[in-house]
């Protein structure tokens, strides 16, 4: 995994007095620290399609998927469904399990005994490009 660091402080003096800021230099912020709780279990996945639009997950976004997290009611998950991957909201209603899209144009999918289904990982962040 790459270590991309965004430097907030980079202050060098080649001669003369030492910088008055030297004592205040802190480690640069690292986006990984914010987004990744379990490095060994975290994967990036690109989203295609608009079925999760209302959960602010759009076409082309990169989602952060943490396999270490336990999925629960209302978790957004990457699921393995009948030989394909899909990203949906996991939902329990009246004792039944559903994969629910966040877009009124799509129908919820009920998980039955015959569905080949498992949760691949829990979505924890979404990286959305705005420029």
């Amino acid at each position, binding site marked *: 995994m790459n270590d991309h660091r965004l430097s907030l402080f980079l202050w060098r003096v080649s001669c003369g007095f030492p910088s008055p800021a030297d004592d205040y230099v802190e480690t640069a912020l690292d986006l990984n620290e914010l987004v990744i709780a379990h490095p060994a279990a975290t994967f990036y996945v690109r989203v295609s399609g608009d079925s999760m639009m209302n959960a602010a997950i759009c076409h082309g976004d990169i989602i952060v998927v943490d396999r*270490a997290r336990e999925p629960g009611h209302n978790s957004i998950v990457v699921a393995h469904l009948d*030989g394909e*991957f899909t990203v949906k909201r996991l939902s329990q209603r009246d004792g039944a399990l559903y994969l629910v899209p966040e877009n009124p144009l799509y129908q919820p999918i009920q998980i039955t005994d015959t569905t080949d289904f498992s949760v691949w990982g829990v979505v924890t962040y979404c990286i959305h490009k705005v420029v």
Partner: protein
Amino acid sequence: MRKKIYALVDCNNFYVSCERVFHASLRARPVIVLSNNDGCVVARSNEVKKLGIKMGQPIFECEELIRKHNIQIFSSNYSLYADMSARVMKVLSQFSSRLEVYSIDEAFLDLSEQIIDDLSEFGRTIKARVLQFTGIPVSIGIASTKCLTKVANEIVKKDARYEGVLDFTALSEQATDEMLAKVAIEDVWGIGSKYSLFLMNHGILSAKDLKYADEKWIRRYLTVVGERIVLELRGTACIPLEAERPAKKGIMCSKSFGRDVTRLEELEEIIATYTARAAEKLRSQDSLTSCITVFIRTNALKDTPQYSNSFSQRIPYPTAFTPELIRYALKVLRAMYRDGYNYKKAGVFLTKIIPQDGVQPDLFSEFSLYDYYKQARLMYLIDAINKMYGRDTLFFAVQGITRPWKMRQSRLSGHFTTRWSDILTIN
């Protein structure tokens, strides 16, 4: 001395399992991963094993089975496997700080210092955690010696009833012996094919037979290495955990080509490319080399004129500077190249390796520390750029651009975890 407890965690069909993590459609489909150049089978899913396809079997021999059973084939994707391996090892390190990464898909854990009531339960926890975090299924053998953990793993892999975990320490001596009797002598860790033939000729057919062999006799014919295995099978730990891997004493880059190569210019590209790769590995462990060996050979399996040769070249001052290493490698290559042969394989081997901070400048030579630092900085930059933007973003022109001789990897899957352009895309 307190009794030792080791666990050996071994990933099941590792390369296949890595591909399955990222291919939802392959859960129940038979899968094969091929060797470099797409030549032979190097990993098989359980379904493929059941069909009788052997490890190392040339792929053209399997074509009918592949068609009939709709087997999915992959080229080996080492950057993916290396990353998934690192993830597995990271999860394992949560369970013991004393961890020996034994190979890309195996690790020993030293559990002696921990107080664990139920080792089988502990093993099942490890197995479940690795599966959840990484998607990779593992088998675990637990025992008082490393050699016995290997035996336990052999048994676990072959018998589904253990559900992937077997703890020898919970078994009586008699029960353990019954297990040892099931493991053939050639499958005992550390007994090569030569020794297993010798032992079989003397009536030692299983791990149990070896356990009860006369260790003096074993020592005479199999040296102290064999004696240690006997003692380990009896439960006395003799092979310690190697938590720190020593820096490599030799670095090799050797591959066969995607097609036959006859022209010197193409061989030069190849040797330059392999040298650059070896130099990169050398720098990644902060080392320098002062001896380079180059070999070339024709395809021994073909009925064409055969030639093979290898030359070594001493380098006056230890270096990790790619242009200099390429210069020496090409000099050696030109000296041994013979026209009129179909070359199939070549390799570059760096030896006489020393740590970078052990460099001794020569008072009377042209070599100066200033030049050395300049070279080191240039290489550092090239390595950093290639790491950030992908291998061969920057390379030396002599390595060639189209490289038509390159390994065949026609069935390569994505670099799902190491390249942004390749991450999994889903709906």
